[in-house]
């Protein structure tokens, strides 16, 4: 029997990320992907999870100086996505379980996909 997809998008805060993914893991969801989108003063992170045909997205908007906890202690398979987002968007992701140390796209300059300008950053910790 064909199931139809159910898609939900939910906005969350940084502090709510780990408790929410903990609950998803406990309920049997799997990681699908993590997507980064650059605004001019923030990076939007979209964490996708799947359970059968259900597709749930957690959306997080972070300023460049904000540190985001890694979800790899809960979903180990997210390590490649988190490494990629850190390399391409310059997002500060803390304690990725398998850290490639900026080598996912080795020849690509760090933060290459970020559109945050120097004047838009509020601290010295912004993307290059």
């Amino acid at each position, binding site marked *: 029997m*064909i199931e139809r997809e159910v898609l939900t998008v939910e906005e969350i805060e940084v502090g709510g990320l780990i408790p929410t993914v903990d609950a998803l893991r406990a309920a049997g969801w799997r990681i699908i992907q993590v*997507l980064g*989108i650059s605004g001019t003063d923030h990076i939007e992170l979209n964490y996708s999870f799947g359970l059968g045909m259900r597709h749930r997205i957690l959306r997080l908007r972070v300023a460049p100086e904000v540190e985001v906890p890694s979800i790899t202690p809960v979903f180990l398979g997210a390590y490649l996505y988190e490494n990629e987002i850190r390399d391409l968007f310059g997002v500060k992701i803390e304690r990725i379980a*398998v850290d490639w140390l900026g080598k996912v796209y080795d020849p690509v300059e760090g933060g290459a996909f970020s559109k945050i300008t120097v004047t838009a950053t509020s601290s010295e910790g912004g993307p290059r």
Partner: protein
Amino acid sequence: MSSHDKAAPGPTVIPFGPQHPVLPEPLHFDLTLEDEKVVGAIPQIGYIHRGLEMLVEKRDYLDYVHVAERICGICSFMHGMGYCEAVETILGVQVPDRARWLRTFWSELERVHSHLLWLGLAADAFGFENLFHASWRARETVIDVAEETSGGRVIFGSALVGGVSRDPDDETLRRCMKAIEPVRAEILRLAQVWIGEPTVRHRLSGVGHVSKEAAYALGAVGPMLRASGVDYDARERGYEAYGEIEFKAVVETAGDCMARVLVRLGEIEQSFRILDEVVAKMPAGPVAVPIKGMPPVGESWIRLEQPRGEVLYFVRSNGTRQLERFRVRTPTFANIPAMVEAIKGVSLADVPTVILTIDPCISCTER
């Protein structure tokens, strides 16, 4: 005795790739070995990053389908179709029935030729060149059919926002199905070699094991996931004509290289049955609706089942002819953590085979 002689043998790091005889695309590993056994693997990509996702910000959203089709040389039609489906969702466009069924036809044709390509490469990875040549010979007929119906052998070029750009007549479709009848028989013969030949079983059975729990937790997709016992196939979402076709995901439980072969062999036969059904039920009518103007502000998420597994497309429109963001999460990208898991514990000689059994496509991965 020198201090050198007293030193205990430590782990050895062996570089593997990016240029390697069995790797069709550039992928590098630092393999940590203890004796001949792999105890750790750190992959490295980044050799062919083309910035295709960012290119969407520079191209007209209707023209970008030609770029999307070139994300991968094997899953080209499905990349184009996925992009179209994502854009059509934002536009609120319903494509004509015949276009949905033709998209399903080309998707399954692509699955067959991709799996046959993979069967050949996998056979080559462990030195079985006859099997390699036989698989690719069978594939030739399938891509002849692709050319006759779509105009392209590998890059089909028939995906179009609002439908499809080619309309092979029903007689041509029936003739093409007749032309690939001998291929079906040939694949059954090849399957006997894959399943029954002791040397093949020796290289594949029990090698590169990924448990059901690990495959799920690591986010594996496609044959890599189903070979470990997880019953998930994104076609069950019912996109295009799949909601009107009877099929079940092909699932194996052993989780090793042989299980991944069996899943793909099963999927080839399943694709032929779907192709039969598609051609028999092909509705008449137009194959495209005209698309005019600019897309509205909005976003869409689409999941499809490519030969290598579930692929995800994200499109966000800002109301202009250049989209704000396009994202493809390809199956190979999702399968890399599971591939690293599969490599651990195997002997160095088995590494190429294990890597090949995820059917890696690095062009897709780097976009």
